[in-house]
């Protein structure tokens, strides 16, 4: 299932660790990097490499927000779902993104580009409302800014903004 190259890399990573288990999250991130999400097959295979049961790995995978157990779009938009962002109008941000990208909360847009999810406080309270897209954080969101960001993302798969 997993490409041999990745498998070798993971095996090395695990054997270098003091106990295999401590690499569980890193292994899942590596696989996700390549495949976008953790399928059941990938879970079983990763658990095998780690000497864990699939259940034990699933306990971790389903605990964390950043490990996806179902397919997600190319860009995962996570809107901060905590107190300060609530005060700064996070619901209208969600509504706007939903309408703009054509994706309900928890869903993926028909073109497979965007997935919209809530996320716990990301520590960007001073620039609320905030969101994370893949590994980038965006603060002080306004409809115009969201338009700009989503347009750029849609136009360029390689786009990165440093705001």
């Amino acid at each position, binding site marked *: 299932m997993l490409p041999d190259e990745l498998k070798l890399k993971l095996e090395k990573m695990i054997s270098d660790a003091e106990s295999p288990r401590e690499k569980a999250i890193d292994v899942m991130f590596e696989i996700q990097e390549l495949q976008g999400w953790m399928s*059941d097959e990938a*879970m079983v295979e990763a658990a095998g490499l780690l000497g*864990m*049961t*699939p*259940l*034990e790995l*699933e*306990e971790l995978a*389903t*605990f964390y927000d950043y490990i996806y157990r179902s397919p997600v779009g190319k860009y995962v938009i996570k809107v901060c779902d905590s107190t300060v962002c609530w005060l700064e109008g996070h619901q209208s941000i969600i509504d706007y993104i939903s309408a703009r990208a054509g994706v309900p909360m928890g869903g993926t847009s028909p073109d497979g580009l965007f997935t919209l999810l809530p996320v716990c406080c990301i520590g960007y309270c001073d620039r609320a409302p905030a969101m994370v897209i893949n590994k980038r954080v965006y603060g002080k969101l306004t409809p115009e800014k969201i338009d700009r960001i989503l347009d750029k993302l849609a136009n360029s798969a390689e786009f990165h903004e440093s705001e």
Partner: protein
Amino acid sequence: MPRLIIDDLEVDVPKGSKVIDAAERLGIMIPRFCYHEALGSVGACRMCAVKFIQGPFKGVQMSCMIDAQDGMVVSTTDEEAVQFRQRVIELLMMNHPLDCPVCDEGGQCLLQDETVSGGHAIRRYRGKKRTYRDQYLGPYIQHEMNRCIHCYRCSRYYQEFSGYRDLGPLQIGDRMFFGRFSDGKLESPFSGNLVDICPTGVYTDKTARFKVRRWDLHRAPSLCNHCPLGCNTIANAHYRGVMRVEARYNQDVNGYFICDAGRFGFSYSNGGALHEKRPWTPRIQGSDVSAKAAIAKAREDLDNVAEKYGPGAIAAVGSARNSLESQCMLGKICRTRGWRGPVFFTDPAKLRKTRSALERLDGDIAVSLREIENADFIVIAGADPLNEAGMAALAVRQASRKQAPIVTIDPRPLFLPCDFDHIPAAPGKIELYLGMLISAALAKDSTGFGKEAVDFYSALVAEKGKSEVPAGIFSLAERLGASQRPVIICGTDVTRETTPSFTADCVRLLRLAGKQAGLFYLLPGAGSFSSALLSGTDGEAFGDLIGDIENGLIKALVVVESDPFHYYPDRVRLERAMESLELVVAIDYFPSSTVSRASIFYPASTIFETGATYVNQEGRAQFARPVHHGGVPVWGGEHPPRVYSNSIPGGDHLPAWKALWEIAGSTPDTGAADISPGEFIPAEHAAFEAFGSDNYPVDGIRVLQGKAGLTGNWNSRIEESSQRPENAEPLELLMVEWMFGTTEFSAWSDSLASAIAEPYMSMNSKDACRAGVCDGDRVSLELDNGTIEIKVSVSDRAAEGVLVIPRHQSLDWRKMKDFSVRVLPGKIRKI
């Protein structure tokens, strides 16, 4: 000993006790969900809140998280604490469905009880309830996640306590879910305890669904008689059927839990075996007759045989299934009537092993399961705890959780639900490796051992140099040397006859070296302790009788709760021998091969229908109370006969000992009414002097007394030399037990059928190479009377020189000329 005051009552508790336990000592049951004595505290449910008034803590705190300390004053009834608990139960009930009327937990539900006692009656929450998709967890456990209150008891029990890794907590927050990675049968053979431990109805007993409400059940304290441990159970019956079995707490035996074989292996008693029904009515030559007629005919025919050939031509056959009452009655009848026997074992070697084990066991060194849990080093020699006595494996795991090293010396590629070091050893090498471990562990200075013990020790040391040394044994020995409370668990199934005695000497040597060493034998069955005592020094086994049946010395058999066909390794020979008999009287509750061949059959009652005493492997006598009278169940397919009668259909059965007394003890006028167990048990053996058949203490009585001083016989020496097997040397065939699929109980309980795995033969990879077979192959194995076909499992963890095959019910293995046979590698052929 901290002293504290709870609700104005003073109590002293051991250091380290939690406040919740201290209150329990006073009879104050603080409400709780997540806390369980066996699992410890996590503080997850917030239900056990109490008010701390004086002492190091103040205010409302969780009583399961705080150690009892001197000077504490605690109130469980303080208004603030009561209101706190009321809010907690309201919160826990927020998502809980209102399905109590149709829930299997209803009537025995902690959540239900504590909701009522907490005073929460009206739901204020108006939102949508959280719901889940449930999983299929196998044939025994029904999953209903909507009822979950997230106490974590299930995952803590399943993963931490019992050591299995396929059920646990998933997701987060409001989606929190307890289950498996995907639908499927739970892997743990201890999964039934989820039913007992869940404080609400997330896990319920699937086998008991849609049959009965809790409050309609007849309940009685019972025992499990599937293995020698004697786990305490509660039997639940309704409408003449046993509905379910639950674990009953016994601090020295099983604690809070039991295994699935014991929990679900009761359906034989309801008549529901897959292929044969339980025989309910007395029979003569296969035709149903009245109880009176069967008894009278049996008396008459036995008298005829005794008159014609002498009473010695009648032999009595019991088994390890027998209760103490049946065994003592068999002994009494044989003595007074001059019959041969009774025999309780089939394999003479197993009788000798069990007897030599008991000779060496006394109250000082015999340990209980609880003491195994507290051991700091465990050696398992020639025993498979998981398969031979399931709860012993859980006890070993508890020791392992407390960092005790576990070492197994066994020919089988054993599995235990904990970390352990396995030393593969053919039966002939178990003593050698055990001796190596012990001698290397003890200080060279053996002064104070006494001369004989020194001789024994020197012999161990001398033997050490003669053979190859298993890897890692010396580092293990070092840890054994540092231990204080080591325990040796010794088996009686695959071991040599000398091994039990040798092991006892090893334990005594450890004690001489200043350790609180303990000994735990795994015996072959629930009644084997008492049967070996009653067999005396010159007792025989069924295997010793068969020659005399063949040459006509024995003309009649009285077979009581026993089935030689199940245990005897040569079916053809046994069939011929049984055919040559003039009379077979069988008293049993299984529809066994012996019963179907009996000239006269009388139905025996099961442990659920009769009070029965069993003495477990550490010599603890315990009593199971009857839960119901029994008879053809009124549910499940068959309707009882539509005839008017004062008696219960199928209710003619008697306890086996009573039936035997009617047939061969009493006079026809008095019947069975003229004797009680208290009258005949004490006379049969000195160990049972104080016995009636009732009024036992809750935890049973230990029949083993401590002997003065340390008595060893110190004569045991390592028997076999230790050369490697030559290429052509035949492989030793070891027939072994599995938890599911090899016992008589699993043969006649359809409820266990779904737990039975396909049989396979284990062998070492070098032997497999010689025989030219690979892992996963199907092979034919040529035995004396034919061949068997079986899958092969090849492992380096199996000892060289042995083939291990389960006495599996789907395997026609009874084709061996003797109890122990050897097979040339050439007799194994790949199919």
